[in-house]
Each structure stands twice: as C-alpha cells, then as structure tokens.
C-alpha cells in the first residue's frame, strides 16, 4: 500500500532519472516510456534517446505504457523490488513493447 510519502517522492525520482545521463547498456535504445503512476502519482513521459533519459511533457505514441503504484515505483527505484519479478507478479502492467519495458531495470540505480 502506498503512502503519501511514496506519492511525494515520485516527481523527485523522475527528475533524478532524467539527470543521470546516458546509461551505457542502453546506448542503442530509443523510445518513449509512459508511466502511469496510480493513486495520484501522475503520468510521466520518459524519452530515451540513445540511452539518455529525458522527461517530456507528453508523447503521442509511447512505445510502452507502464502502470504501477507509487509504492512499487519507489521500491524499484531503491532496488528493494526487482523490476523483472515486479513485472512477472503483475505489480506492474505493461502495454506495448515488453522488451523495451524490461529495459527500465537498467535505469534504476544499483542497490547497495
């Protein structure tokens, strides 16, 4: 169950993702993620340009739409929830390109 704190952290996590620069292992990937963070987390568009994520205001044709709760999103960003098993469990919904969706795991920081 998400807390108010989780919801509040969502924008900060996206801003952080967009400031990280190019992710080497995604250097040949281009496309747009649409994140629908439930429970008031909002819609977010992340444009991946040769592995460099940038936030966008909107996107007409995202490659994939990923839906999850604020709590799961925070947990993935902290590394306490494995992205692949979150997909398999159905904690995350994916509509579109699954391979591209699974690349999201490369965006999150490596847990300690």
């Amino acid at each position: 169950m998400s807390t108010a704190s989780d919801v509040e952290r969502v924008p900060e996590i996206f801003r952080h993702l967009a400031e990280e620069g190019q992710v080497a292992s995604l250097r040949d990937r281009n496309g747009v993620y649409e994140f629908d963070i439930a429970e008031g987390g909002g819609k977010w568009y992340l444009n991946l340009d040769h592995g460099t994520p940038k936030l966008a205001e909107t996107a007409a044709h995202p490659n994939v739409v990923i839906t999850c709760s604020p709590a799961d999103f925070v947990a993935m960003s902290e590394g306490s929830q494995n992205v692949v098993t979150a997909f398999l469990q159905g904690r995350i919904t994916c509509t579109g390109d699954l391979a591209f969706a699974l690349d999201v795991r490369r965006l999150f920081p490596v847990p300690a």
Partner: protein
Amino acid sequence: MSGRTVSILEGNTFVVSDRGGNINATLTDPEGLFAWDTRFLSKWILTVDGLTPNVLSTDDLRYYETQFFLVPGTGTIYVDADLSIIRTRAVGEGFSEDIVIRNESNEPKEMKVKLEAAADFADLFEVKDAQPKKGQLYQTVKDSRLTLGYKRGTFNRETFITSTASALFEKDGLTFNIRIEPHSEWKTRVDVEISLGRLIERPVNGDRPQRGKDLTQWLKGAPSLRSEWEPMARIYTKSLVDLAALRFRARAVDEGALPAAGLPWFMSIFGRDSILTSFQALPFVPDLARSTLQALARWQGTRVDPFRDEEPGKILHELRYGELTAFEERPHSPYYGAADSTPLFIVLLDEYSRWTGDRQIVRDLEVEARAALNWIEQYGDHNGDGYIDYKRAMDTGLDNQCWKDSWNSILFADGTNSILPRSTCEIQGYAYDARVRGARMAREIWHDPDLASSLEQSAIALKDRFNRDFWLPERGCYALAIDGNGRRVDSITSNIGHLLWSGIVPEDRAARCAELLMSDALFSGWGVRTMAEGEGGYNPIGYHLGTVWPHDNSIIAWGLTRYGFRKEAARIAAGILQAALFFNGRLPEAFAGYRRQMTRFPVEYPTACSPQAWATGAPLLMLRAIMGMEPVDGRLLVDAKLPIGAGWVEILDIPGAWGRADAYGRGTIEVDIQALDATVVGSVRSTSAAAPSTAPGRAS
C-alpha cells in the same frame, strides 16, 4: 520426446499430450499446455458418448502442428468403425484445435462430444511436485467462453476456451450434442488462449505464425549437403530442422530467434546452451549466433546479487517467467549461476565476427564485451588464486556451474566429491581463449592496443600458471578441477578435449591429451566418455560420470582438429555419426558409456528434452571439424580429412565473410572402428521423457 507423448511448440508455448491428443497431467506424466513456464491446461480430454476414442495414428512430423486420427472407442473390443475423428492442433500463444467427425455410414448419427478441461497453473519447476498452490484457482462461464484462472495477489494467469460450433459451456469443459447425416461431417474449431493477467496485453485471435513457410526459408538459407554416405545428408537435414524447432523468440528480448536449450522443457534463454549451439551451427546458420549475442548482452549482469548469483558483466545462465520465479522462490529472473557463459560469450563474439566478417557487431557490443572481460579478471576469481571459480551464494543456486552441472560431476579419482568453490579446468581454457580473442578484437576493431597487450599478457600468464597448477605429472593429464581446499581433482575426464579447443594446451602436451581421449578408458567406440573407465566415480550411466555426450564430442573433435589430430577427430566423428543412425538421425543429449563391443548399439540415457540444442548442433561442428573449415583473412579455408567410409562430401553455399563458398572432401582417413555403413540403421527408443528438474538448471 517419448513414444507415449507428442510435443509441439511455438516459441515458449508447447503442448505435451498423449498420442490421441488428450492431456491428463499426473505427477509421472507431466502433460499439458505450457507457456511462459506455466501450465495453462492440465486436462483436455475428448470423449464421444463418454468413451475415449482409440488412436489410429498420429502425424507429428511438424514441430508446430500435429494431427490425431481417431475412431470411437467401443469400451470392449475393436469393431469396424463408421465414425472417424480428426483432431488438428496448431500451437501459437495457446493453441487452436480443429475437430472433424465424419459419419461414414448410411445412417444419421447422434452423439455427445465432450471436451473436459482443467488447469492447475503449475510452475514448470513444480510439475512433478504435489505442492499446494498458494493462490486460488477459479473457473467461470460467460458469453460462450470458459475461463480457467489462477490468482495470487496481483499474479494472474488465465486460459480462455471458445468454440466456433455451438456448445454447452460448463466449468469443467464444453459439450456438443450433435447429429451428423450419412456420409457427412461435423466440425468445429476450439481456441485455447492464454492470458498473463496484468503483465502484458496481447491481441486476441491474432494471426497464427506461418511456421511452414518459415521452415522452408530456413532450410533454403542453409548450405546444401550431399554425400556418398547417404545418412550424412539425412543427419544434416535433421539437425537443421531440429534447430529450426529450437529457435526461440522471447518476448522479453527483441533481437530475433536464438536457440533454446531443449524441446520442450527448456524453451528459454540459456547462456551456455545458446552460445555453444550457436558456435556449432555458425558455418551453416550464422544468424543464430548474432541473435544469441545480442540477447545475452541485453541481459548481462549489472550488480552483485547473491540470490541470482549475478555480478557485473556476467552472462546469464537461465531466464524463466513462472510463478516461483515471480515470487522469488526460484532465482531465475534471470539466474546467473554459470561460470563459463561469460568467457564463452567472448569466444562466440570473436568467432562470429571472424566467420561472417561482421566487425560492426564487435563495435556494437564493445561495452558488453569489455564488461565480460572485466568479469573474467575481477569477479570470476573469487578467492584470488588466478582462476575462475564458482560457489553458489544461496541454497537456491546451482551446485555446479560448469557444463557438467550435476551435483556429483567433479569427483576425485577415488570417487569422493570435491568441495566448493571449484575451478574446473575447461573454464580456465575458455578464459584463456576469451583473453586471446578479446585482444584481437581490442587491437583490430576497438583500436585499443593497451587493452590488447594487457589481455595478451594476462593470457600468457594464465597459460603458464594453468600448466603448472593443473598438470598431474603422475597421471600425465590435466586435473579436472582445483577444489575449495586447493586440491587437484585428479579424475581423467573428457574436459581435456575442451582444453584443446581453447588452445591453452602447449604443443608438447597436446599429443598426450589426444592419446588419452582415444584410449579405451575414454573412447567407448561411439564417442569419448565424460569420465574415463576405471576412475572411482566412473559409471557408464552416470549423468556426467561416464556417459557419452555428442556435443562434448563435437567440441573435442574440433579441439583435436585445432592441434592437427585429424585422424582422431575423424574417428570420433565416425563414431558419433554412426550412433546418430540408431536414433533416426537425431542425437540424444547423452547415451551410455558402455563399450561398443558390449552393446552393439548406443544405449540412450533418459533425458528431459528431445531434441536437445547442443546435441542437435553436434553433427554440424563435427562436419566443420572433418571438413577442416576455417575462416582465414576473410576467406574459407577447407582442408578435409574424412573417414574413408564417408566417401565424398560436398557442401555448397556456405555463408561467411566471403559471401558464399563451397567445400568438397573425400574420405582418406582409416579409422579402426566399424566403417561408416549405411546398413547400420534402426531405432533406439528412449525411456519415458523425464520432466524437468526442480532445481535450477537441468541437472538433478
């Protein structure tokens, strides 16, 4: 597959049924419709007026479609039937089944046809366990559709069943009350579709893949082979067709088809299996290697994760999608417990580039290749002794993380087990080869002479160190491994053949390796045993303790070829290709290590999958070895040394950096085993196909 079951597949979806098309899963007969490592149907039984029809014949010649020809059962003895039933099943994401019932009599017929359906949604790893499910099973009927479902929290899997003909839908299946006029027929199409709940949406009733057309194109794209010894072409074609069946398009990667490990249970991404199969098939269907490299690069490890045995730069062992993986009761998301897949990744990358002339892929995968080379240097050697070793971090991991992955494969000559962590010899050979090849790529393609020099020096140092530490002077052989106590594991095994392949063996020791490989202790007459007869752990029917593995032998033959032992390579090729004839051209994963003179035929070892990917690839690498095919400066060098019984061999349109080229050879090598003889035909039935192990990987 066993004689009692029929398997068809498309991607990672497959159906295992009895020869009448029915599915009735039990702990001993793990039948069902499987997809994404989950059983979506565990019961699918057709009855006519309450009786199960008798099987006339089954056409399972295509791997993606099958037909069952049935007549109604009388319940007592056979009488002339005037009804015939044809079930035609094609697998997609789920399957579709056309049922046709013909009334061959002059009278109208009325009957009740029932399809009983149920699903237990067992994880592939638990099909032989009677584990209670942790979630809830449910069945619903709505709008002429039966839904079988399973829910555990947000984990949801469903099976949808619909029919084109009118039916009575109930929670346990669907019933057709039909009347067929004389010499007429009734038919319906039943669709069984699967849903992964919230994981991914898929188009309902999407187009079925055109596998027949695809297979034709696949075969046309490969070189053609003719031989005076007719079975050679048959074995070659069988290998190509089986490789086509084993191609796997994972939704989790988009790099194209790569070879899965085995049909049907191991239709998933495996590091070691996919790499070795791609290497074997490289001269004939090089695209497999490309897809394999790209997919494995995409899943390369990035972090230290003890549960998954993941480390930065490490190439995965196996990726799975089932419930146990989802809830982290199994580590396959993905699991990285293979100590050899990372150096083998480098080996395949270099070999693919040299064979095809594709330098761009080496540039494209530079980041991943450097990370893999770094893993070899930094992470692979856990105890700092200069050798790659392995020890699972958690009990859910694999005990042995080399290709001989059964728990007792690394034994001392007295039969006692070694302790972890283990550094097996062939992995050091792969690491040597990876450094040598990495140096070439660094110098010629990445234009990084410093890295190239560093890798070359590291390779030389490893070779010196290895030949000092692993050599057993008292046995004149390399140790199988160095164990956790620093002891040299002194059994004589087939692993020394892999050392020849890697090039880590100095010339002055290569002859001794070849002598041992061809000795009566190791060579059974059909092939080289995994462990030599006379060793304490030797067992001709022990999984890695004396059986003969065709893929192992293909690597050995290639290693012998590398050092110029062409007669020995030809002898092994002759033995393995002759063995293939006893299995209708399809080599099994392994067969017993009994002496050839004793059994006269190769005794198959019961294994989980058929075809098995690297057994399928074995004849291809054997062909490369005896034809002496090697890419040299963008040209194909052919130096055939064939067994005399092979007569002549012609391979046309071999793809590579040269475009297309042909290879010819004539048998000149005397081999002192039974000459290649086309009259040696027959069929050896395996025992029942085993279900997959419940442990990670394949071994149990």
